[in-house]
């Protein structure tokens, strides 16, 4: 596949930075408006980035990193942190299950469906967690192809 153009955005999300959740997703969406004219695509991507951002703010002990890579007609997002890790990934992926603190829940976060939202709106989803940290990788495609080409 030709037409390879790679661009990168990187953000740091602080622990308990509830106030700013959504700000990175809005920046990403704004930046990508030049790449992707489809509003439907941008909304889909926006939902996923918002949820990844919220997870870093709610669950990390020292914050995390949000890396957004644009290549071909797709966007890959890597959300990484150094702890405390997800003890049971299956449980974390069960709709309604949450370990969000009371403070976050009062603000309407911690509904227990954030990861499910990403799974639903993204085209690929990968999650790994160790005691030391968690890595979430997902892609949102602006095409209907089903195979990876990188």
């Amino acid at each position, binding site marked *: 596949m030709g037409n390879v153009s790679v661009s990168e955005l990187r953000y740091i999300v602080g622990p308990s930075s*509830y*106030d700013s*959740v*959504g*700000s990175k*997703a*809005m920046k990403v*969406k704004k930046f990508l408006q030049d790449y992707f004219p489809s*509003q439907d695509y941008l*909304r889909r991507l*926006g*939902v996923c980035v*918002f*949820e990844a951002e*919220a997870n870093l703010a709610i669950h990390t002990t020292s914050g995390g990193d949000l890396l957004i890579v644009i290549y071909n007609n797709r966007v890959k997002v890597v959300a990484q942190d150094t702890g405390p890790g997800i003890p049971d990934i299956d449980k974390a992926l069960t709709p309604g299950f949450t370990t969000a603190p009371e403070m976050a829940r009062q*603000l*309407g*976060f911690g*509904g*227990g*469906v*954030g990861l499910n*939202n990403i799974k*639903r*709106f993204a085209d690929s989803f990968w999650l790994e967690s160790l005691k030391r940290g968690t890595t979430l990788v997902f892609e949102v495609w602006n095409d209907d192809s089903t195979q990876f080409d990188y």
Partner: protein
Amino acid sequence: MMTLRNLITKLPFQVLTNKCNFDVSFQNVYASDLLSNALASVNPETAWITVQVHQNILGIASIKQCPVVIFSEGAVPDDSVISLAEEKDIFLLTSSYPTFELSGLLYRLLKEE
């Protein structure tokens, strides 16, 4: 399809944002205070009812291009949130009705349209 103009003449809302374009319209209403639910469900044709008044709601409305947020229970956000909404062309209304009643009233109005 319901325009803001039509809406505020039929129900006692307080318009919070200045420079409101009353021609903005919506086709359906979604009520939830859980951010993930709203994020998944609102869209450019939705008015969103919530009691959450912090600025994250504008992130959701902006990302999903949801044009109208209606606060129930008389909730009113800080001025900074209202200003930010004006910048983003998101219209904020508030009503003293509880969410259930507000939803019912809007449901009936939309059915009558």
